[in-house]
């Protein structure tokens, strides 16, 4: 499979190791992985590359995950890209926040630390593989 045929996944996480783990695993699974270390450059990269899927942390420098999502949704070029939130919350108990994420168009969430196979399954589901 050539680089052009591979599905593109953008990972936005300010913790280098987290981004690295996801990158290695997804690359191994046959994805073309792009990494951004903060919200702003994440949005820039998304606009430039139009990835098939974005995995986004919520607590990010410069622009947090919520703002990244809002910004992407406002731009017609990036509005349709599915976004999966990665967060370190323990349990999603408050339906309001989950609803907010859904309203903004987040397609799913991953609870950190997450199981790599669970992450891969979610990525496959939302990239249509």
């Amino acid at each position: 499979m050539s680089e052009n045929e591979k599905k593109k996944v953008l990972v936005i996480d300010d913790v280098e190791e987290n981004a690295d783990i996801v990158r290695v695993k997804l690359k191994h699974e046959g994805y073309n992985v792009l990494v951004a270390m903060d919200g702003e450059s994440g949005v820039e990269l998304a606009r430039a590359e139009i990835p098939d899927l974005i995995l986004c942390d919520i607590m990010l420098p410069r622009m947090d995950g919520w703002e990244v999502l809002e910004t992407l949704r406002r731009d017609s070029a990036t509005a349709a890209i599915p976004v999966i939130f990665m967060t370190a919350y323990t349990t999603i108990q408050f339906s309001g926040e989950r609803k907010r994420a859904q309203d903004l168009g987040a397609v799913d969430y991953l609870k950190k630390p997450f199981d790599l196979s669970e992450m891969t399954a979610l990525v496959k589901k939302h990239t249509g593989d």
Partner: protein
Amino acid sequence: MRLRLGIFTKIFLAVAGLALVPLFIGAALITSIYQDLVDQIVYDVVHVASPATANHLMGHIADVHQNAYTLMFFILLISILLVSFAALYLSRSFSSPIRALLDASRHIARGELDVRLSADRSDEFGLLAGEFNAMASQLEEAQENLERDNIDLERRVAERTAELTMANVELRSSAAQIQEANRLKSEFLANVSHELRTPLNAILGYTDLMLDGIYGEMQKPQLESLTKVRRNAESLLRLINDILDLSKIEAGRMSLTLEKFDPGELVRSSLESVQPLFARSRLELRADIADGLPTVEADRGKVQQALYNLLSNALKFTSAGGVTVRVYADEKRVNVWFEVIDTGPGIEAAKLRSIFDQFRQIDGSTTRTVGGAGLGLALCKKLVNLLNGTIDVSSEPGKGSAFRFSIPVVAATKGALPRQRQAEAAPGGKRTVLAIDDAAEVLELLAASLEPAGFEVIRCTDAERAVERVRETNPFAVTLDIMMPYRDGWSVLKELKADPQTSDIPVIIVSIIDDRARGYSMGVADYMLKPINRAQLIKRLESFAGGDEWREDA
């Protein structure tokens, strides 16, 4: 109609009457004797004397007669006058002290206690006046004492009121401090938990990558070691989660999501997910699900968490045999019981009591062999209590233990949460924000910013009616301007925070006046300067939604 006569008139009439009656009787007697005498003389003169002498004498007699009557008249007149004066004097000497007494009594009755009678008379009236004065003095003294006591009492009441007000202020500020301390604790735990999870994420992630063989095939000892790394990292993660859950329950910040579910199905799906762990330990895992169980309304996730904790406990302590999970309803079908029965070592009766305490395992040696900080059962108890159920244990050393907990079939809201009322969306599905600002255009701007984010904005331009509007609408949050005509925002804020009905509602100041210190000291949730930063305001309002879960990350 009876004629009412004063004492003066009575004494006067009595004295005058008594003195004048004998006087008139005496006068009448004297007149009669004198008339007899004159008649005798006239007779003698007429019969004895010559006509000339008789005429002459008769003339004299007529003169004497005339003079005698005149004299009599004057004597009577003078007597009457003297008697009248005497009566007048006497009656006055009686009536004037009585009048004075009457006068003085009237003054006293009016509360003028300083009146005194002249007590210079030596008679009974003098004594009476003396007694009266003494009584008046006593009254006056009593009155003064009373007034002094009253003033003292008022002063003491004022002092107590001041003390109470002071105590109230202190109480309120210490309550605020406790609330703040609790908030800081939760924030701290959330931060610590985030900080702990971040490196754990890297440990688990890289371990997984290596176990997956992404970095190349590994030898058996390496695989085994890495598996141990992973297992320990997982148990560390569980511990962090338990601690966070415990602290959340303790802080009253664990919220419940109620749903209806079949308890039998819950047990089946729970057993399915732990089956591999039991198989690995070569333990049998059985389910004993009663027929016809009622549908339960509760927080399914929390029930499952409690059951998992008991299962993981049973797995940890049982080395041979098996574990049975029973689920059944009590006779009245009010509660459903979940019971986990193991064939482990059992627990001595003396140690059963403290088994649900935090950080306590049955003895130090077990801690070493089975590991763990002993939070599972403590968390289990807290969860069950939160669900309004009960938990207990029965055990026989050498034979095994049976842990069981109940949950009510119909949800009872015991773990009522602070701000739940406001955090939950209104029946219409929207959370209301009451916006107070005298400028209608500011309110329009606020509404235009907040409504797309899912808030309903109630506009209030009348500061004087603001507090009333808050009580009426019981909003999710309030935004408040400071500079408003007729009533400023500080006074509105003060009243809102003083009323228990409204004091919990978060207030965000939105003003051009920058006096954050004053705002925060008065209990505002946030202080924002105009022009409004839309994103910041929405973010802050969202944070009131009570969910700390996402804030850990934000």
